[in-house]
């Protein structure tokens, strides 16, 4: 229970003593910002399956980009566009529900990635591990700069498109009436999603980025009402999970990205429990409890 008995040594020293820990933390926080901002909308719009499919469906794009010697991020984005295009195509030409078209493309893209990689030999295949689980011990300045850019793009995108996202989430026809171009906004959201996935390769890796897209925003919706507050709370939850995850991984020598992902999911369940308990026993009086009473959010 060192994190209680010697808090400075457990919580702070790993970061003050080691630059790579600070880099890892920074990468984690940037990932959280990007994924929380975008993930809030993924959760609100019920796009979780698509989000996961996109996260893994970028693999063939990466494989092809690697073979061609092109930047893998470009390959990933191209694959994301191809997948979304495919889903739209199926939607337009068949009565199949979205989750079927997403499922078909998801598995197709994954299989394509494996086939492509099996035709290659030796060293390329090793990078797969790094894509899946991230490489938070091998960050350099370029990685951090890329993540900062992605976070910036996500922030700007979410702010600029806030109204469009908001209205189209809760009332699509109203959005059209108001001239908010829901089709375009929808495409923009998918683009932001693809960017947040690609940007998180280094920190959490492809397999587990989904945890950060979904768990902190989901936990935040249990606690906050207004969307901007949901995004903020999600970022805070995500940072908490990242800090705890990195520290546990450091002190107990566990896989970092998986530990961070587990923490974010664990946090979700903690929040769920607390909020469920509070809903079962609503306060009847206006007495103070833990924390100061604040004017209700409207």
């Amino acid at each position, binding site marked *: 229970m060192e994190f209680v008995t010697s808090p400075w040594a457990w919580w702070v020293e790993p970061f003050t003593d080691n630059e790579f820990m600070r880099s890892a933390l920074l990468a984690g926080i940037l990932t959280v910002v990007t994924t929380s901002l975008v993930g809030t909308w993924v959760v609100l719009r019920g796009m979780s399956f698509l989000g996961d499919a996109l996260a893994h469906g970028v693999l063939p794009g990466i494989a092809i980009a690697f073979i061609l010697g092109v930047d893998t991020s470009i390959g990933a984005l191209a694959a994301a566009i191809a997948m979304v295009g495919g889903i739209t195509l199926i939607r337009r030409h068949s009565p199949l529900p979205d989750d079927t078209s997403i499922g078909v493309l998801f598995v197709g893209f994954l299989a394509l990635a494996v086939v492509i990689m099996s035709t290659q030999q030796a060293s390329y295949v*090793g990078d797969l591990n790094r894509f899946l689980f991230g490489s938070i011990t091998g*960050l350099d300045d370029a990685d951090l700069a890329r993540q900062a850019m992605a976070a910036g793009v996500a922030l700007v995108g979410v702010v600029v498109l806030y109204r469009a996202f908001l209205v189209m989430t809760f009332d699509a026809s109203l959005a059209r009436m108001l001239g908010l171009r829901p089709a375009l906004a929808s495409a923009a959201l998918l683009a932001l999603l693809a960017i947040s996935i690609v940007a998180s390769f280094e920190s959490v890796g492809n397999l587990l980025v989904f945890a950060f897209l979904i768990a902190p925003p989901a936990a935040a919706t249990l606690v906050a009402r207004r969307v901007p507050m949901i995004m903020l709370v999600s970022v805070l939850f995500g940072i908490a999970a990242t*800090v705890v995850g990195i520290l546990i991984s450091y002190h107990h020598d566990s896989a970092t990205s998986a530990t961070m992902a587990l923490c974010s999911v664990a946090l979700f369940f903690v929040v769920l429990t607390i909020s469920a308990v509070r809903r079962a026993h609503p306060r009847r009086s206006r007495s103070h409890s833990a924390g100061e009473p604040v004017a*209700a*959010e409207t």
Partner: protein
Amino acid sequence: MIDVEDDTCELRRAPAHRERRSPLTLPVVAVLAAAIVAAAGCGSDADDGTAGAGTDDAPTIVATTTIWADVVDNVACDGLAEVVAVVPPGGDPHGFEPSLRDRETMENAVLVVANGLGLEEGLADTIDSVEASGVTVVRVADAVDTLRAGSNTHADESADDGAATTDTDHDTDTENTDDHSHEGDDPHIWFDPTRVATAIPAIADALVSAGLDPTTVEGCVESYTSELVALDGDVEAALDVVPPERRLLVTNHDSLRYFADRYDFEILGSVIPSSSSLAGTNPRDLEELARVIEQTGVPAIFAETQYSAADAEALAERVGDVSVVTLQTSTLGEPGSSTDTYVTWLTTTAEQIAEALS
């Protein structure tokens, strides 16, 4: 103008009263709760962050595999340094992912010794990052004559398809001198003790630059080099029982190329035609390999301890009269076992090969 914010933002079926608490207090409580829940599950006290500082006097040197750790330990003999391996005994350097702790150990070391040539695929960018932050990194393969990685050499001859990589001449694998790029070469250089011996001076130079006493290091180099020469002789003697027509190697992965080169064996082919453990099998190549095994009557396929031998075993069953022998190919045994030094490991491996083929 319809005000969207008020009505459409209510996401939850609201309880009868309004929440009076800021939604921000819960995250704080949640953090502590999550920390307690998560950390309570881990019983043992972890070290605090002083791992890798070494003993009070001896600096720390980090090697990637246990094999190189032992070699470096012998060049920095007499307790000149504390040498640790990142990939634990029995681990797979191809796929090993370093933890934050490993990164810290490397960061605090005076020298990092890696094999290079893509052996430590999972460690590659961590090593680069450590190098960028100022720690000297020696990649042993840079100092050694390397061989090009190839696929099933015999299979290439008969099948002759464009999909197969590189060379089709078997016994005369092209040797690369240091002038050429080593890109794509086979990394398993530790199977040839004479090559390891040629890398010793480079390791010694790095140790001296890292601050170890040059005279002592020189003494260590001399004694270890003669140990390696003796090892080379012992291995050759152990392999004498294998007649020339039996000096054929079929492996699970393409890992014995340097052994074959040094001790006059021929690589018939590999079940998985790649030196990377993460590649897969190819049915057509397997067909070819089965045919070649039947033709030559080779009695054993050599698999590796750290990877699944399922494909090799399936092939052996199909061909019949072939046994699958498992070798430790990229790691030493646990400390205290009979293969916990480079010398004992290579001797044991050679004996296993000799027994399987004679």
